[in-house]
């Protein structure tokens, strides 16, 4: 490591921010794959519904990220981090539950 980032907490923070973005994208992709099964409409409308769903959840994710990062300097960030991680865990297990149902009852085709 060429740069000593001890004096610059921006780099680890940025890496973490990017990791959150990757997780958000992975979650959107996974949710879209599961949600596809629950949208039994015309192919065109299905696409539109999916786009709306993805847009709304993407905006919600971005908003949650921005809101959670506003921690007062000097205050511990752990409670807010804990909330975010719990939210991510909850979302993931909810997706897993939906995926389980989807896998148990696949579309007849």
């Amino acid at each position: 490591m060429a740069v000593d980032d001890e004096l610059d907490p921006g780099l680890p923070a940025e890496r973490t921010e990017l990791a959150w973005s990757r997780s958000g994208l992975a979650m959107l992709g996974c949710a879209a794959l599961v949600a596809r099964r629950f949208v039994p409409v015309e192919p065109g409308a299905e696409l539109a519904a999916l786009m709306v769903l993805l847009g709304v959840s993407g905006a919600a994710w971005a908003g949650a990220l921005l809101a959670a990062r506003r921690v007062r300097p000097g205050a511990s960030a752990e409670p807010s981090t804990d909330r975010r991680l719990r939210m991510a865990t909850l979302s993931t297990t909810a997706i897993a539950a939906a995926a389980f149902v989807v896998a148990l009852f696949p579309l007849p085709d």
Partner: protein
Amino acid sequence: MTDEAGGDAGGGDTGGGEPDVRFTYANERTFLAWNRTALALIATGVAATQLLPAFDVDFGRRLLGLPLIAMGALVSVASYRRWQANQRALRRGEPPPRSALPVLLAGGIAVVAVVALVLAAFAEGGRGGG
């Protein structure tokens, strides 16, 4: 990692010093990486049941997909608990606790792979079977 090198934020105390922020961020990223692993397991499980052609064996695709999805849920919850345990260890200046998660994940994936191998070798068919 154990020595809290360079951490001037009061790490290494008995109960509750604020750990070095870099370690906190690293712990958070580790959780996120595990969380993405869980999502990948779930997505793969769904893809196995929805996108693969049917095997001759009944429930062949579900035999592959359902364990993967269940593993995804398990990894998701376990990674949160692991983050908590790591954070606690960081506060106390202890080494991070051992976790059975990597072994369980590797074992689970290996079992699913063997099942997939058996299915692919002996239950090939695709067109005709249910």
